């Protein structure tokens, strides 16, 4: 079952809009006046230079005022950015003015800090392509791989993301596969940041790094069968990996809405900052996730903020993976703006699908849609007020198994994710809503039906900061 892409686009752009709306008026104004000033400086006559230099200096003070970090607000240090701009440019990551998205900070800073070690002789040629692994940096949690493709085919080609396997082709990456990149004629440099799927000590000594190169076809989601596969062996130095990075036992408890959250430990290393979090079993609320987790690095009220790059579940523990600045030893802290949670007594959804009636739900934001039928339950989760601005936490999920009025268990017949739509506000004044459709499998089930909520967009906002390193 497919999702309506228009609905998904609107949903996506709403999230983007919420993020874009956070920029200050002063920054926008500075950008606009900067655009005009940029030209004017070029057109100045020499005798006006000093006058305008003074004016520009004064203006700069005014322009910079809004950028002076407020307490706890993230800011990017211009000097720090300049320091790594060469590395970023080498990696082909720089945008206008030498800036780059801080999602790339880990690899850029690792290169700048000399942590990406050259790999000798890791080169293979095939079908007009040369695949070379130039540098790697491996630690207990993952690996950065810097590689290049020399393309002599005369055509722009698609390069599927690097995969790492053992000798039998078994993937060793926690989550593999990503959108392919493209490579024109000549050399194109790439990097891949991977996480080990399991304990690094169980990794084989020799890994195999593979890329697939194929013609560009926007309709192909996987490499075509005539793709050129290029594989190179890589030898790991596990003793070195064991020594890389530092593990900090934190065991810090903090409370949000009277719920205990435990920041268990941090592994701070070349490939990232890994924070393992657990929730106290005695909590009265079921916590579905942390709201807006951010890793803050800096001091004296000047911070760089990093968003979560990836999350991992291992042994029932949730690990948040953040970018790391390998060139900085500034203190780290975790900032959370709240939790998404429900009282443990409220995680049941009880409905009467015959009467189209909600008997029990966490709140009144959930409504039965008129589109419901006896076999298909359609629920609207209405967005009110600031619901849209809760960092995208607007998703409800229920367990596939549900129970009918006689205690008989049933399974939903469809994927919840496949049947999620966004409904705009209606002319009759109804709020916008997320619409969930569930195929019940058969009509005439004994009522009521009881579902278990696996997540519910109930954001509880409460900002907390927890020190990780001093």
């Amino acid at each position, binding site marked *: 079952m497919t999702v309506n892409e228009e609905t998904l686009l609107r949903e996506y752009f709403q999230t983007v809009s919420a*993020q874009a709306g956070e920029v200050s008026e002063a920054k926008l104004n500075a*950008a606009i006046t900067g655009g005009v000033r940029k030209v004017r400086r070029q057109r100045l006559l020499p005798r006006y230079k000093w006058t305008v230099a003074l004016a520009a200096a004064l203006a700069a003070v005014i322009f910079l005022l809004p950028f002076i970090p407020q307490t706890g607000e993230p800011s990017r240090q211009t000097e720090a950015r300049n320091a790594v701009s060469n590395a970023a440019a080498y990696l082909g990551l720089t945008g206008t003015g030498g800036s780059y998205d801080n999602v790339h900070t880990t690899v850029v800073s690792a290169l700048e800090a000399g942590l990406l070690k050259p790999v000798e002789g890791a080169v293979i040629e095939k079908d007009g392509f040369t695949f070379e692994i130039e540098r790697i940096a491996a630690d207990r949690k993952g690996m950065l791989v810097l590689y290049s493709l020399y393309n002599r085919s005369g055509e722009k080609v698609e390069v599927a993301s690097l995969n790492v396997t053992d000798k039998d082709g078994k993937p060793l990456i926690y989550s593999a596969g*990503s959108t392919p990149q493209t490579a024109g004629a000549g050399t194109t440099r790439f990097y891949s940041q991977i996480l080990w799927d399991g304990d690094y000590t169980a990794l084989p000594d020799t890994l195999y790094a593979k890329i697939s190169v194929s013609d560009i076809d926007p309709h192909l989601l996987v490499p075509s069968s005539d793709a050129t596969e290029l594989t190179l062996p890589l030898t790991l130095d596990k003793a070195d990996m064991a020594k890389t990075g530092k593990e900090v036992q934190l065991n810090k408890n903090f409370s949000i809405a009277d719920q205990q959250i435990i920041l268990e430990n941090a592994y701070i290393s070349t490939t990232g900052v890994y924070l393992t979090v657990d929730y106290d079993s005695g909590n009265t609320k079921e916590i579905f996730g942390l709201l807006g987790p951010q890793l803050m690095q800096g001091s004296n009220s000047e911070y760089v903020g990093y968003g979560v790059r990836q999350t991992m579940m291992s042994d029932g523990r949730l690990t948040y993976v953040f970018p790391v600045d390998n060139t900085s030893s500034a203190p780290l802290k975790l900032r959370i703006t709240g939790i998404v949670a429900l009282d443990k007594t409220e995680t049941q959804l009880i409905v009467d699908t015959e009467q189209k009636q909600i008997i029990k739900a966490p709140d009144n934001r959930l409504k039965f849609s008129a589109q419901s039928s006896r076999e298909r339950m359609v629920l609207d989760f209405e967005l009110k007020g600031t619901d849209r601005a809760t960092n995208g936490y607007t998703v409800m999920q229920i367990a596939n198994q549900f129970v009918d009025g006689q205690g008989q268990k049933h399974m939903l017949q469809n994927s919840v994710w496949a049947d999620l739509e966004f409904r705009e506000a209606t002319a009759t004044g109804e709020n916008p809503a997320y619409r969930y459709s569930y195929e019940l499998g058969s009509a005439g089930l004994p009522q009521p039906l009881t579902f278990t909520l696996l997540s519910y967009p109930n954001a509880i906002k409460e900002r907390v900061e927890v020190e990780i390193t001093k």
Partner: protein
Amino acid sequence: MENLLEGQWAQLNEEEAGPFIERVASQKRIMYGIAYSYLRNENDALEMLQEATYRAWIKRKSLKDTERFAPWVTRILINCCKDELKRRKQLVSAEPQSRENALVEMTSDRKLDMQRALDRVKPKYRQVLVLKYYQDLTLTEIAAVLGKPEGTVKTWLNKGLKQLRAQMKGGFSDDGQ
């Protein structure tokens, strides 16, 4: 806000730039939003806003019909973003989150899936998707922004959605269903 603009402008001491800045400022949220949708980064989006202002300023004499300032400057902004994306080499990065139970992961995956799908839609189609689904412009308004016939815009919209569909195919049916 207005005081700051006036203050800056007083120091620039150019009579012509005042009204120009005001006009751009009246569109700044829209322009920034579009730039942000392309680059997804505050610094880069601000730089695009600055770059678009710069290009519009030096080309201001070419705008004959001042009533069309808004679509004109929006088009310049979109071109800046497209140029920037063309120039920039997005490299392979680590994969999105696993599809475990945590809500955080699922919401993030959906967003990443859409980001990646959009990144692979042809730029000329993508600009239509942004204007329609982000800025809620009508086809007529989009045609005015892009300086293309409405029929062309409609075709690009359909092709953009088709490409997006191809990219998204199976993307959200990944929970084992």
